[in-house]
């Protein structure tokens, strides 16, 4: 009896650790060289995602802005803010900024931003309400189960292409019907989406 209880307790502990923010890093803000606030830049100033993440529609990698992109504005505003010192130093000393990756997939998984964006998956679907995040954190576990939930039933999440970058978009009440219609319109081949070769190679 005791052994059985111990096994159950052990199993439960492992399960809890596996799904805990300690392992998944969900909702854990990460240390960065500059405490960059998406909340301020997106909902405060109204910057579009693509102002910085320039290659999100054309490449696998969404793109992290070069120091010069930051300095387009910060050579004019907040010129002397101590918090921006690393950015200014980067330009002056010709040293690259080293950001900590927030959404990190294992090396045997190959993700492509462009195809998701072009097929109507909103930024917020995976990255959460980025416009409300003063510091960046990971919104989803990025576990394979989570990927497959959508790859098996994309109609639950698809939105019109025009709404992909809209942080305030809310799914319609008949999301399943609307999503199915979008799935057909965008030629999303669900059968193929759960092939191993979609992500692993």
């Amino acid at each position, binding site marked *: 009896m005791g052994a059985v209880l111990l096994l159950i307790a052990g199993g439960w502990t492992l399960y809890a650790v596996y799904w805990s923010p*300690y392992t998944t890093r969900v909702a854990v803000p990460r240390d960065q060289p500059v405490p960059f606030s998406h909340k301020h830049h997106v909902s405060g100033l109204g910057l579009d995602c693509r102002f910085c993440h320039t290659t999100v529609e054309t490449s*696998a990698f969404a*793109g992290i802005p070069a*120091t010069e992109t930051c300095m387009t504005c910060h050579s004019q505003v907040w010129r002397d803010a101590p918090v921006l010192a690393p950015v200014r130093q*980067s330009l002056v000393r*010709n040293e690259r900024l080293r950001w*900590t990756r927030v959404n990190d997939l294992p090396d045997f998984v190959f993700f492509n931003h462009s195809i998701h964006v072009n097929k109507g998956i909103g930024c917020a679907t995976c990255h959460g309400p980025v416009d409300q995040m003063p510091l960046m954190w990971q919104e989803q576990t990025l576990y394979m189960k989570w990927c497959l939930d959508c790859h098996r039933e994309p109609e639950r999440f698809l939105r019109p292409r025009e709404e992909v970058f809209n942080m305030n978009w809310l799914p319609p009440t008949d999301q399943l019907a609307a999503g199915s219609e979008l799935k057909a319109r965008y030629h999303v081949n669900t059968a193929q989406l759960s092939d*191993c070769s979609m992500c*692993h*190679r």
Partner: protein
Amino acid sequence: MKPIAQQNVTFDLAAIRARLRSSDGPRYWRSLEEVARTREFTEFLHREFPERASEWIDGLSRRHFLKLMGASLALAGLASCTRQPAEKIVPYIRQPEELLSGQPLFFATAMTLGGYATGLLVESHNGHPTKIEGNPEHPMSLGATNAFHQASLLDLYDPDRSQAVLHQGQISNWEAFLSALNDSLQTQERRKGVGLRILTETGTSPTLHAQIGGVLKKFPEARWHQYEPINCDNVHGGAQIAFGQIVAPQYRFDRARVVVALDSDFMFAHPAALRYARDFMNARRVTAGRSEMNRLYAVEPVPTVTGSNADHRLPLRMSEVTNFAIALGAELGVGRGSATNFTGVSDQRFLSAVAADLKTHRGQSIIIAGETQPPFVHALVHAMNQALGNTGTTIHYTASAESNAGNQVQSLRDLVDELKQGRVEVLLILGGNPAFNAPADFAFAEHLKGARLAIHLSSDRNETSALCHWHIPQNHYLESWSDARSYDGTASIVQPLILPLYAGRSAHELLDALLQSHPRTDYDIVRTFWQSQQRWNDFERGWRRTLHDGLVAETAFPIRQVELSLDQITRAAPRSAIGHLPSAIELSFRPDPTIWDGRFADNGWLQELPKPITKLTWDNAALIGPATAQKRAVSNGDFVELEASGRRLRVPVWITPGMADDCVTVHLGYGRTRIGRVGRRAGFDAFILRSADSFWSGLVTLNKASGRYQFATTQGHMVIDSAEREVYRAGTLADFLAHPEFVKESTRTPSAHETLFNPEAQLFDSPRWAMSIDLTTCIGCNACVLACQSENNIPVVGKAQVARGREMHWLRVDSYFSGELDRPGMNHQPVPCMHCETAPCELVCPVGATLHDHEGLNLQVYNRCVGTRYCSNNCPYKVRRFNFLQYADYHTPSLKPMRNPNVTVRWRGVMEKCTYCVQRISVARITAKNENRPIRDGEVLTACQQVCPTEAIIFGDLSDPNSRIAKLKKHPLDFSMLAELNTRPRTTYLAKLRNPNPALENVA
């Protein structure tokens, strides 16, 4: 480590001969072991891996074992709980234009081998080159490359490359070198450079030529020498005799119906080989609407890539090839020889058949002599081609692409003489390794000490660097600016893709140091040179266009009209046939098919690449024919001692069917002593026996020596029993024309009641990826094997692991001999994963790590694989490879940026195999979907397909009836390997067609 996979076997060659002659003998065989049915062969045949190949039998102390076990137990517990380590994203400071993170860029550049350039397109991910492809616009590439080009990428990232300027072996720097050089140069300038000597390899660079011109103007008494161990001296000498000037013959193999190769490996070792292989095979391919093939005769001592593709191949010693050329000349009415000089009944028959065939194809034939044949043979061949009316139709002449074409051996001899006399004060050696590869009788290494200041520019610290006062690391061609010409004269700019990784310099920068105290960068030097040429009205536009295209437009040489001097040719020819002492053995030297003259000896990809025909890896050997082996009572691995003029080489024997009798071939380039970790202790140094007089061949005595040597050959690995099952299919053109369905009719496919699968059902959706490999046009050059290795991050395992059958190449090229033991036919069959529709491997995987996707690909999912190896056990084609150890190098920093970022780097304990380059399919699929269109035919090129010089590999979508692949699959020659198993492979073959001369039908 004691290799266990191979035992040395002494063959009963008489029994092997008898078995091959008998009617139940194998039609296609891979090795002597197979014909003899040795224990080793049957073991490889029936077992997935040879006995004990999967066991750890190294001497491992108990203490060490416990330590390892303890560590792995501790890690096993932790591994499942650890989180991913945090990764950094490091963006640019200024975003470079045109660079999209995650998307590769391609840049045109060129690589030289033996001085001659081939245009390349190099893939770059975030600023580091990751893959080399041919430049489709370049006339000497047409999109293809050879194995050397592919492997040059690894040279760039080689951790053992030279990294610092050395003075007397101590680390120094460029500034210290410049000041030392300037001191000497001031003296030289006063004395007009009387003691200044420059030694380069074969040069075709217009900029370098102009720079040397500048140096010789400033130092009028200075001299420029050129030497490379694999050179065109004989070709130049032949042109000199025939035409009184050095010209380069340009061949049009696409127009030739009959080709005679006199010891010429024009499809592999010629500076224009890629182009010639494509042209030759285009005139050979039987497609819809074409029912003609060209015919190739090869006369050569050792099987070469070209010879293995001949319709008729006559193995003759090098001196006999010369005799053959004279006799052929006599048959065609050229030269002073007579056909009777050449004796031997079957050979006589061969000779007359060749002559008759040539005579009926006047103006449509080519006779080509190899650079190993003496100058007068080349001259004679020019005369024969003229007599046949080929000059002007299939052959024309142009200037040579070499800046200073001449006799390199003589040039080096002059330099050595001056060194001996102590007249060389400053010696600048730009690249090359003469201390290792100069003719042995020159004793270059010894006389090099006579130079007061010797400077060596080299990419590695080799034998020559060790003897020079200064060693300057040479930049790789992917890190420096230069230019070069290809065989037809087309000039290309060599454009770098990355800043120099180490403190290297280019030859241009070093030469500039002779001209000015503050040398310019190679970019300035090359650019200024082309500016001075005034080729373009708007220089900036012309320059950018040239860099983009990868070649300088309209620089191919114009045809030169030449006058043939028959008198000179007659005078140069010997009066009688070259005799042969029956006791003597003729030794011939060849560039190694994988490491060339030794320059690639530190390249693991090339070292491990199984050599064409012999399939040896990591070694060279004394190649001898079965009859000679029998006569001398030696077998595979037995050491023999070769002796020539007092110089001796102890080297093990490898019996090679197809070698001429009484001759031995040792490939050059092995036995390097000062080299990085990879090439150390690999092979035997044939340069020891090479002298200026016996540059390509010479007489030696051969004596059996004591001891045996363990080779690592892949010839017997992954064998499929070709005696019981037909894995290779071939026929003649005549058979095919008379009976087009001969392949289909002899193929047994199971009927519906013999199988659980419905043989008629069409499995999987659109697109349905498939591959077709044409066995007629595959020349066995190995480029595909290395392209696959580079594209798919395939690790190198080392000689000991290869000997156990653990090589990791996803694509192998099987060599099959056919016919008689002494004059076999040779056949090549590339074998990637078959991507069976009803794949046997999938049924036995307990964890679903190998399974199909909806496009019909047989996938291997590394992160699911637990390493049971059941799949490999169940694969009838033996195409799966298992990571027995941690082969991929996770730790060497310089190797990380080399890898393809779109392919997983595999770890110990997982299975892997050909994926049809699924990463390339994925890129094409996403691009097409983003653009709302279907994937176009030809949009996905697999790495092996892209690199193939002869377009023997075609890949595409079967569900598109207009695709190239769909048409090929309907070709009557299409067949599946082991069709009777009903695996329904997506990779199929086109049977090989030969075009034998009816007059020689039973001679082979």
